């Protein structure tokens, strides 16, 4: 744990950000804020992946003229994984927001507790 913030600054920041997002997701009763928490968690995962691909003192993964040696560039694989993650997160966020809009149209509130109560009342 001692070297956490010297050797693993970005990973540790990503994990703290993940915790912040997860806490937001659990503590907030507002659906929009829950979605924001989920997006903060997504961002934490991108930061973690991007920091995993970083190699000290190397070029970004775009060919420089005259530099063909593979050991001159950082790892491009995590960048591709982050791209996949962003696309999936955009899709999931859009779907969640659409569901939230429908719930708001039906119950006229964004509070999840009130929605559950109203939905139960509607069942009876």
């Amino acid at each position, binding site marked *: 744990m001692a070297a956490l913030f010297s*050797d693993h600054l970005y990973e540790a920041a990503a994990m703290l950000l993940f*915790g912040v997002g997860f806490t937001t997701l659990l503590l907030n009763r507002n659906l929009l804020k829950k979605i924001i928490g989920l997006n903060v968690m997504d961002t934490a995962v991108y930061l973690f992946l991007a920091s995993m691909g970083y190699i*000290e003192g190397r070029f970004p*993964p775009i060919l420089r003229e005259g530099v*063909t040696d593979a050991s001159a560039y950082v790892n491009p694989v995590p960048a591709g994984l982050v791209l996949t993650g962003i696309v999936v997160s955009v*899709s999931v966020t859009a779907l969640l927001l*659409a569901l939230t809009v429908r719930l*708001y149209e039906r119950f006229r509130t964004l509070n999840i507790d009130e929605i559950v109560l109203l939905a139960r009342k509607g069942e009876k």
Partner: protein
Amino acid sequence: MPKINDRYPASAHKRVSDWLTNGFTGLDREMTQAETPPAAPSAEAAGQAEDAFQEKARRDRERESDLYARLHHWSVTRGERQARLLYRFLAVIVCGGIVFFLLRTVSALPALGRVDAPVNNEVSYRYISRGPEETGAVNFVSGMILDYRAFDTLGESSVLFLASCAVMMLLRLDRDDAKGPVPSPLSLTGGDLHGDDILRASSLVLFPVIALFGAAVVLNGHSSPGGGFAGGAILGGALMLLSNAAGEERVSRLITERRASLAIFTALLFYAGAKSVVFYTGANGIPLDIPLGEPFSILSAGLILPLDMCVGLIVALTMYGFYRLFTKGGY
């Protein structure tokens, strides 16, 4: 010791000493006396006992319902708050525990930026060392996601298409809904921005620049930072700006729901068809000569440029579609 003396007539000692002094007859007499039934209680006494029993049952019921009422009162006044506090407390504890264990795990990883980390293995080495000659792409990430891992990117584009279909199903306005549209919690503007002079004048300058920049990012995805996803997002933003500034009915006359879906579908079909040809020929050893062109020029990198354009089209139309669906409930 009065207590002991009180109980003495019924004690075993008294009975044994009686038996010793009086012989069997004394004990026999005692036993036969005990077997005679007690006198039946009078009707009045029975009635009193019944009344007392009823009174006791009534008091018990009252006490019980009082207890339930107090419990209910507690649950709706203080109990709800306390349960919520307990939930919040537990949630924070759980999150703190998760973060603690994640940090412990992170501290066991190899340090940031180390070459010998296990994630830097022969896969990335191969992508970088052979990438430019095999894919023709100068941007290793573009070469990776549109050539080596093209199947993954096809899946991503399909996820975007499916998400836009799902959002369309959820948000499309019911035309014969007599109640009229419900105000969406997500519409930030609340009104129509069309006719705002500042927005229209600035978008006259900004839109061509943004659209050109987006197109350049899409078209140069293989030779510089960028690619279909980034450029598509920029183009989608440009379309949103145009829709706000020039009036959404003009833009939506150009990009109808049918045309947008058709364009996305065609792009996906072209993508899948092109990659199918590549997979088929590659797996069966059939030579397929797609000219790779000169590195750093626009017309290079074989199939990556058209695939990037497909991805850019899909992303731009999906972003614009999300915007339209969330604000207006339809294209």
